[in-house]
């Protein structure tokens, strides 16, 4: 464990916290998606960091993992955006506090 890894992890933590903040506080679904993407990016950053400063950096395992996660994140975002579009077409809004039909 050295200072560089800690710095990267700190950046990752800030990124994750910002993402979480965005996902929790923004009222627009699009921004929530962006926040979620930021959290995912923080996760990927962690993967890469632990690989780069891990015991076997020559095996490319972490990079591969991050690459796959990004691909999956892209698909997930596409689905999320499609959902938001569908909701918008239906409700004429993307404000999440108006989308409360899940209320019990």
């Amino acid at each position, binding site marked *: 464990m050295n200072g560089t890894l800690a710095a990267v992890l700190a950046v990752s933590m800030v990124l994750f916290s910002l993402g*979480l903040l965005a*996902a*929790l*506080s923004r009222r627009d679904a699009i921004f929530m998606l962006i926040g979620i993407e930021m959290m995912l990016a923080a996760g990927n950053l962690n993967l890469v960091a632990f690989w780069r400063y891990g015991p076997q950096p020559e095996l490319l395992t972490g990079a591969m993992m991050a690459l796959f996660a990004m691909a999956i994140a892209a698909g997930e975002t596409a689905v999320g955006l499609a959902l938001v579009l569908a909701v918008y077409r239906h409700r004429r809004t993307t404000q*999440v*506090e108006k989308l*409360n039909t*899940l*209320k*019990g």
Partner: protein
Amino acid sequence: MTPWIVSHLFLIPAVPLLAAFLIVAMGRARRAAAASVAIAGQVIAFSLAVCAFLPTLSAPGWRACSNFVWFTFGDIPLRIGWLLDPLGAAMLLMITFVSVCIFVFSTGYMAEEVNFTRFFAYLSFFSAAMLGVVIANSLLTLFICWELVGLASYLLIGFYIERPAAAAAAKKAFITTRIGDAGLFLGILWLYSRAGTLLFYDHGHGCIEPAALAALGGAGTFIALLIFCGAMGKSGQFPLHVWLPDAMEGPTPVSALIHAATMVAAGVFLVARMYPLFSFGAVNGITPALEVVVWIGVITSLMAAFLALGQSEIKRILAYSTVSQLGLMMVSLGVGGLAAGIMHLISHGFFKALLFLGSGSVIHGCHHEQDIREMGGLRRKMPLTFAVYAIGMMALSGVPLLFAGAWTKEAILDATHRWPVSAAPYYLLVAGVFLTALYMTRQMIYVFFGTPRKAAEHAHESPAALTVPLVALASCTLLFSLVLTPAWPWLEKYLTGEKASLNPALLIQPGLFTALLVVAAGIISGAWFYRRAGRTDPLETAAPALYRSFERRFWIDELYAHTILKWSAFAARAAALLDRYVWDGAVRGIARIARGVAEFSVNCDERAVNRCVDRGCDATRRFGSKVGGWHSGQIQSYLRALGIGALALFLLYAWLA
């Protein structure tokens, strides 16, 4: 080589039966057609009977049967068949001939009847059933036809259904004969269980052929007596004679048919047909079964002759005379005079049909008055009826030499005289002959002599439709005696299966003088005693108690009403009570138990199971609504909870580690 007619003997009853159905199918409006179809059917049956009669002449004691399998029950084939022998052939001829006469008479007598076609359908059916009895070679088919005869008699006695008396008489006839038939049926079952067949003759294997009879052993007597029960019912023997006089409620041609050709003849015929069973193992011609037959016959014959003296309805007198003559025939069969009994049955068929149709002619002439006390002096107004009625009366009384009834009666007396068991039946029968002459003289005097009383004042001679059959029957009664005389006893030898020979010397016999004496005494004393016959009977003036007991028929009907009828009514009521309270009670008890169980189960369901389920549902619902309240619907609040939870888990992990 059996002739063609034997295997086609069924055609004889089939033709009248077909005629009956045809008449029913034609409808009520076709009156003339109905009568012609009925008469044509009967004439065809008569011609077929002649065809059947001819081969029986070929050899003495000729007999042929045609048996076939009716149906197979499991692996037991049920065989029935037709039987042609002198007994059957003679009966066929008599029945069909008398039926033709009665049918023709009916066209005139029933001319104004609304249900004319129905009447002829029934008549044809009646005659068909009786012919079926005669040709049957199986006790089973005989029994079926026997019951059909009973049904037809029920329909015809109750023909005037609108009259309660007729309906009651029909019921009485049906039920009384049914009591006898129950015995007959038991006898048939017993015989079948022992002999294994109900065919009369089957080339040595039939139930009344020696091989089967020998196997019966002691049961034979009881079977014979059970079968005789059936004959007693049908032939009106004491104590089942009560239905026969009541049967006079039917139209007169029906009375003639019942009393002459069908129904009552069936009983005598049955005994004659089953004679080998009755007489099997006879010592000196005596068996226990035959002895019973003799005594029943004697009682019936004498009792009915007495009762006839106290009757004032023209047909009832004849009815009792029939009962009396049937008793005579039974005696004859019982003492071994089989041929004499059958000869009397046949000659009785002719002259009794003549008398009944004659009385029908009288009733028709007197505008449907049947009480002889209202008649009188008809000899001048209805000369033809008077002449034929006198022939019938003399035949019935047994006036010797000329009349058929006399020869046969004499043969019966002769046979009874030779009965080794007891001399009593002979003397009782002689008394019966005297009484017969007496009551017939009484009837003749009341109806045809003296001054015309109320109903006879406007009497008129009947039309040809009524008189032609009368003349035919009267000439038959006279001509029939040709084959009966002891000089040339053709019919007797024909029936017993021997060859007849002509011997004029035998014509004069001691029995002839006895008969002449008794009959003359009867007629003369009758003529003297009833010389002043009027509204009140001379016997009623002379011996009121005696007359009353004859008139009330020895109170036998009352006795039955107070014993058997009362007992059966009591039994019926007891059965009803048993049904209502015991069996019904048991059923209701079971129903109550079942209801109790059902109610208990309902309570369990509603109180226990349903309540548990309801409580569970309520709790679930309450919990659901409480938990549901936590759902704000705001995604971000969910996310917040998620984040806080994750953080809490993370901190917990950090703290634990």
